[in-house]
């Protein structure tokens, strides 16, 4: 269905090749996963398939790409619209209409399909992705998960033979991600759709993939079926790391396979541990009856909680449950309707300038919002000056977070992970009492996530500070958080030590705990530590 023959790609004004001499064949009805570190060219590979690269981006392309016999050299992206559906990394930027129905019809209108065909197909796809209740809503007002479904629907409505998705679950909560992936799985099996997905959160997609294309970033690629690639790949979901840690011969890619293998191992059953949060005297952040609503929609409904020093609190919940609203109220950006929020006995909304920087550090969902300098160095110097610290301090912090950032580079040209690190080092250089992060792992690869985890734990432990983060990333929470607050419909439904909250909900349980259940282990590290303790 898709064939790459000897494809090499170089972007203008760049000295490195993104892809080098890549040849591959993707058959009809295959689900192929593209993996690789951030900035390695996964998106470029996807956009090569329908010719957006190089028709839209420029660059030099050698070799040939054919989709269903058509060469992207001869046919422009528009000419492949009936054949290939593409869903970009940020679906909101790719919407061309205001309302759901109009968005779905757009491509069909452009190809001049008859109105009755359009009607039928729109109804079909509305049912397929359960979008019928949203059909006349304005897209900008939908939640992230709903927007993602609309984007997939508007690609599917063309009845394409190939569907290309760039990080389709990065903005979704585990349940919504599961939903989207099972729809794709069904389409592949029922309709013989060919699907190409790029994704960082392998734990979500690995079970569905037939084959994996592993891009290294230096032009090298490994292609093979999922188990083969997972045996050798550095980039792997927790479940694969688990089988390596246990010294298994085979790698299991699904929880079911792994459970079967693990049951033969006769692992110890540790006694039930009762972990309770240590008692505290005075809360650092105190929230009483917090109520917040946007036009006609209640975001937070009389929510009360206290957060203490030394804690790393993960705020979890479905898309649109009110996580960001809670974080923004703590940071003091959103005006609250009712109730009271205090951070170290101060109302955060009154904070400004230096006091704000030293009390609360906040990383918004889009870390680049904080950046306005022309180069990394300029940003760091500005932060040094603002925080009245020695020149070079911020850059040093940045170097501890990630190595090898070119100080002259423009913030826009950094990879997602590097940009987050830059924003984080700007905030950390003020040494705030409270650090708040909104969805920090969007677009981060495992390597970047690991260093983020290390830094946050260090920050909380060494400096005795507290961290609050909102995230959908269950695996991150398992590695990092000491406490989880679970929000639904603007109110807290569960609040307790990470292990209790995560184990009590199957949908939000990390992979390792699903394999190891009923043993209370959340991460590969937990398992290794428990086994070592047992043998000692």
């Amino acid at each position: 269905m898709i064939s790459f023959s000897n494809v090499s790609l170089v972007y203008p004004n760049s000295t490195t090749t993104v892809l080098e001499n890549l040849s591959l064949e993707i058959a009809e009805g295959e689900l192929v996963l593209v993996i690789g570190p951030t900035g390695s060219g996964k998106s470029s590979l996807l956009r090569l398939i329908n010719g957006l690269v190089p028709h839209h981006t420029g660059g030099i392309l050698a070799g040939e790409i054919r989709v269903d016999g058509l060469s992207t050299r001869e046919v422009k992206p528009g000419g492949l619209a009936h054949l290939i559906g593409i869903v970009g990394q940020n679906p909101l930027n790719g919407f061309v209409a205001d309302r759901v129905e109009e968005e779905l019809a757009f491509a069909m209108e452009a190809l001049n399909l008859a109105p009755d065909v359009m009607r039928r197909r729109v109804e079909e796809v509305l049912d397929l992705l359960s979008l019928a209740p949203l059909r006349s809503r304005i897209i900008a007002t939908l939640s992230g998960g709903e927007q993602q479904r609309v984007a997939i629907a508007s690609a599917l409505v063309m009845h394409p033979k190939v569907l290309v998705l760039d990080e389709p679950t990065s903005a979704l909560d585990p349940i919504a991600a599961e939903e989207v992936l099972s729809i794709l799985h069904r389409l592949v099996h029922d309709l013989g759709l060919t699907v190409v997905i790029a994704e960082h959160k392998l734990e979500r997609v690995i079970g569905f993939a037939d084959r994996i294309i592993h891009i290294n970033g230096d032009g090298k690629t490994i292609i093979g079926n999922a188990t083969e690639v997972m045996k050798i790949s550095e980039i792997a979901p927790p479940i694969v790391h688990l089988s390596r840690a246990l010294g298994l011969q085979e790698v299991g890619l699904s929880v079911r396979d792994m459970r079967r293998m693990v049951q033969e191992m006769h692992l110890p059953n540790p006694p039930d541990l009762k972990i309770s949060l240590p008692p505290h005297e005075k809360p650092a952040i105190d929230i009483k009856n917090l109520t917040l609503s946007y036009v006609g929609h209640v975001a937070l409904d009389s929510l009360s909680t206290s957060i203490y020093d030394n804690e790393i609190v993960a705020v979890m919940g479905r898309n649109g449950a009110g996580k960001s609203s809670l974080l923004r109220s703590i940071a003091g950006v959103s005006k609250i309707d009712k109730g009271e929020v205090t951070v170290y006995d101060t109302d955060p909304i009154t904070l400004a300038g230096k006091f704000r920087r030293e009390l609360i550090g906040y990383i918004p969902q889009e870390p680049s919002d904080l950046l306005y300098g022309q180069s990394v160095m300029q940003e760091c110097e500005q932060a040094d000056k603002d925080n009245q610290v020695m020149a070079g301090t911020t850059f040093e912090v940045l170097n501890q977070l990630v190595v090898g950032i070119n100080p002259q580079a423009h913030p826009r040209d950094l990879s997602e992970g590097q940009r987050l690190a830059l924003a984080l080092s700007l905030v950390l250089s003020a040494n705030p009492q409270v650090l708040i992060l909104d969805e920090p792992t969007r677009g981060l690869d495992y390597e970047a996530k690991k260093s983020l985890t290390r830094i946050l734990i260090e920050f909380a432990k060494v400096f005795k500070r507290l961290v609050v983060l909102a995230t959908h990333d269950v695996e991150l929470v398992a590695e990092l958080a000491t406490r989880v607050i679970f929000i639904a419909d603007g109110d807290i439904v569960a609040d307790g030590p990470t292990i209790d909250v995560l184990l009590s909900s199957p949908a939000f349980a990390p992979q390792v705990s699903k394999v190891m259940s009923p043993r209370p282990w959340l991460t590969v590290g937990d398992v290794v530590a428990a086994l070592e303790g047992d043998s000692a």
Partner: protein
Amino acid sequence: MKKPPHPYTWWIWSLAIAISVVRFNNPYCAIAAIALVGFVVMSQREDAPWGKSFNWTLKIAIWILTVRTLIGVTIGVPIPGTTIFTLPRMPLPDWMPGIRVGGAVTAERLASALSEGLIICAIIVIFGAASSLTSPHRLLRVLPVHIYEFATAVVIATSVLPQLVTSVARIRQAQRLRGQSTKGISSYRRLAIPLLEESLARSLDLAAAMDARGYGVSRKRSRYRPINWQLRDTAIAASGLLILALS
């Protein structure tokens, strides 16, 4: 749900009003026009991202009016009349006769600077009103395919304004969180860079998305749900044209 008027309607109406303002060339007409479009926007706009662009054009207009009036009264050719107050005059070399910086500020001069500024403001505000009342995406769907390259450019241009408005709010909020003041000129410089980059990136994304969805491939375009020209549209457009005829 109330069906919004045809996408052309408010643009025709606004264009007619804008031309009338220029033809009247009268500050009172300009004020009346601003009041009129303001009233129409407040009562007609949808609760959608593009609906907010009007407020921002209003702010920009006030800013332009202030700057232009200040420059108008201090620099330029003097108009004789009643002196309100006198500024110290900056000496200029002999080869620049007739132009002065500072000096007497007369009521006539102030009035002429104000009235010119008002007309410019009225045009900006009327443009803001049109883009506030019409969804850029709906406009795209009715524009003829034959001019599709041009149409793409128009849509991207008109959708940039509402996007800017939402981005401005978000970026300012983030920067306030970094402890930076959001007042003063340097704050605008800090705002401008991320804003420009974001709107450029978004426009490119939109163009790529339209291309990938086959926009402009077929010379004929079908309609999923027809956008019809209705009696109401005729009435609105006619009211605008009537004002134009009166001018």
